[in-house]
């Protein structure tokens, strides 16, 4: 299998909004930029498919396309060494790519948080963001009945897409209370772009019931999903559907940063006003540095790009924009905080770890995440706890274990190729 060596003075991991903004700014500043991401097209999860979705995405994808001095390599980063300033990546074909950097910008984005409930492993129950991705890559949902449940603005965006693709969105069940969302809506008024976004979405979704303080208690069906049991303030009722898209907010992807030795907190990779992490020469921008949406990602990406390229003044000029977006992010986190009642949806019988088929009851008496892994094999499967880790962080307050290589499953041949970088 092939081994390729590459280098860039500024290497950007991730081609979502933060990565695009970072690469563009760094290239504008005259930097030699290399972007690394396994995604087929630029845009990340949110602008998936490379299809221009709105004015903002069109603008940035065009900027990326026209920028000079940006190279891209399609490979998934599986390991890294801060001391040697190198990344190790693997292509879809299984070839290995060694990448040397002088400055590194991590724009690794976020993943959905799943919370287990009865029936969540039934075929037809998918992540809300996962459903969005499936539809964007061609899943036909015409005439399908879809329930969206969980928390956060992503549910609205997914509903909008589903309606556009002629699915019937039966309802959106948002666990947060109406009062909390209203307070959040007030704060939106200070962020005009967000306000327009929310108004447009609401207008388009006018016919879809948006139920607050409401959640799915269980998904039902023998071989695949047939219906869901809903609960709103103690009132329970059944709704038939073909798909349930569920997501309880987002979790920053911090594994690569952790492997590099960057300080991380519960909300994301710890960064300063220039997006610098605790590790010299390593920056982090976007959702990985704290959940906050596309505008925050773009602002932080730009700051990281300018700063990494040595244009401190230009980076500083964006401080105001960044501060406003961080305010929005804080309000978002507050409005859509997860309710204690959701912990009650899990019984001893509920599967928590899908990879290793571990039920909640097996975790009783476990001291911490590491003991649970050792004794029950929870989180020891293919996804290495990316799914159950997020759930157990909420359900048990367990913090993730120390990251060790590889950050994603990698061919043994790729691991040893690091010697040749």
């Amino acid at each position, binding site marked *: *299998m092939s081994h390729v060596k590459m280098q860039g003075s500024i290497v950007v991991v991730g081609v979502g909004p933060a990565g695009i903004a970072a690469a563009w700014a760094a290239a504008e500043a005259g930097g030699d930029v290399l972007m690394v991401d396994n995604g087929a097209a630029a845009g990340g999860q949110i602008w998936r498919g490379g299809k221009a979705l709105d004015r903002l995405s069109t603008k940035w994808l065009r900027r990326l396309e026209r920028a000079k001095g940006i190279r891209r390599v399609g490979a998934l980063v599986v*390991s890294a*060494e801060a001391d040697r300033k190198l990344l190790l990546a693997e292509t879809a074909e*299984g070839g290995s790519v060694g990448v040397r950097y002088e400055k590194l910008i991590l724009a690794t984005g976020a993943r959905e948080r799943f919370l287990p409930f009865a029936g969540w492993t039934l075929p037809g129950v998918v992540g809300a963001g996962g459903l969005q991705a499936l539809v964007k890559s061609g899943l036909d949902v015409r005439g399908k009945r879809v329930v969206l449940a969980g928390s956060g603005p992503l549910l609205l965006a997914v509903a909008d897409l589903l309606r556009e693709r002629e699915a019937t969105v039966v309802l959106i069940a948002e666990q947060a209370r109406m009062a909390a969302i209203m307070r959040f809506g007030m704060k939106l008024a200070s962020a005009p772009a967000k306000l327009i976004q929310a108004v447009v979405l609401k207008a388009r979704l006018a016919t879809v019931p948006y139920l607050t303080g409401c959640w799915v208690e269980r998904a039902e069906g023998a071989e695949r999903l047939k219906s869901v049991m809903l609960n709103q303030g103690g009132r329970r009722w059944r709704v038939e559907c073909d798909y349930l898209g569920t997501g309880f907010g987002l979790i920053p992807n911090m594994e690569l940063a952790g492997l590099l030795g960057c300080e991380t907190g519960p909300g994301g990779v710890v960064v300063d006003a220039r997006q610098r992490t605790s590790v010299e020469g390593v920056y982090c921008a976007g959702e990985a540095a704290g959940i906050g949406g596309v505008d925050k990602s773009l602002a932080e990406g730009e700051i990281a790009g300018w700063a990494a390229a040595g244009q401190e003044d230009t980076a500083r000029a964006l401080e105001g924009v960044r501060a406003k977006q961080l305010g929005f992010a804080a309000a978002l986190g507050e409005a859509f905080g997860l309710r204690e009642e959701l912990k009650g949806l899990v019984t001893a019988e509920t599967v928590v770890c899908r990879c290793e088929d571990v039920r909640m009851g097996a975790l009783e008496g476990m*001291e*911490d995440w*590491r*003991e649970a892994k*050792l*004794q029950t094999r929870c989180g*020891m*499967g*293919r996804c*290495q706890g990316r799914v159950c880790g997020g759930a157990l962080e909420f359900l048990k307050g367990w913090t993730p274990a120390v990251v*060790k*290589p*590889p950050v994603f*499953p*990698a*061919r*043994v*041949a790729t*691991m*040893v190729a*690091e*010697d040749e970088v």
Partner: protein
Amino acid sequence: MNAPDIIVVGAGIVGAACALELARGGARVSVYDRGIVAGGASAAGMGHVCVMDDSEAQFQLTRYSLELWAEMSPEMPAAAEHVYCGTLWVAADEEEMAEARRKAEFYLPRGTPAELLDEKQLAAAEPNLRKGLAGGLLLPADSVLYQPAVAWWMLNEAKKLGATVHVNQPVESIEDDGLHMGDGTVVAAGRVVNAAGAWAARLTRNTPVKPKKGHLMITERAAEFVRHEVIELGYIKSAHSGATEAVAFNVAPRPAGQVLIGSCRQLGVWDAAIDRKILNKMLRRAIEYMPGLAGLRGIRSWTGFRAATEDSLPLIGPCEGYERVWLATGHEGLGITTATGTAKVLAAQMLGRECGIPVAPYLPSRRVAGHG
């Protein structure tokens, strides 16, 4: 006073086995650990239960331990995943084949089953080994188990007999009056057993163990890729070369089909971080012997610290310079294998329990005397 008769420091597999045997002997036992159950070397090893022949004393202890595991196996829960897969020692060339024959000639008269394999038989036993190897030696009575679950079970059995287990309790030092804790308090006990593995030397004086760091990697599921615990006979050379760093080809199957890839040894290293240089050296060695491993996906790597002694025998018995402190440490790479035998050797001395082998070769005093 309600002080326990005996406190065992260390909830790894050795400490757990000792606690169970002492509790079965009627002692009121408490177990203390700085971390979680089986969180040290016991979390890191391959779970290999094997007979060894570096010395007569090592053979005695390993063979006796295998008998004890066989007795205990039916009692153990399914999570123990005790599988008699056998050990396959691989000979790359004629020199190593001679070593395989020597081993067979050692084991067979002593009643330990051993089977010499030629090139073809070796290929049939492990189809993913590279072609052109000289042969091998199969030890069919060897097995693998999942040691964290075994230690957990042993401690639960001890609890049923009244033992108590205290995790996340850092012990600063062990003295004749009991455990001196990190917070300044003293936990009194009749006697104390230091079973803290590589950390034992930090707790008691006259405890000549050093850390020997190891790395392992586990792959995704690959059913039937490896069938035995497979080790190169070159291991003998590398493990005893006296070098402070060595790698050897060593793979083992997990019941669900993942492959454990080892092994390496770094003497005196206390840094738990993955050392990519030696990890890669180890992986390259494994690929040399099993080229197909290159195509499997590694999902996780980790490190651990074996407790090494100078003569590769454990320290089981009274700790020199103390009245009421005992040692059960220094098992190096054989802590899983000899946990059961160690418990018997210790309980024979502390409680007068019966033991199937002489205890003298494992007494800590052998070392101090020898170096006196």
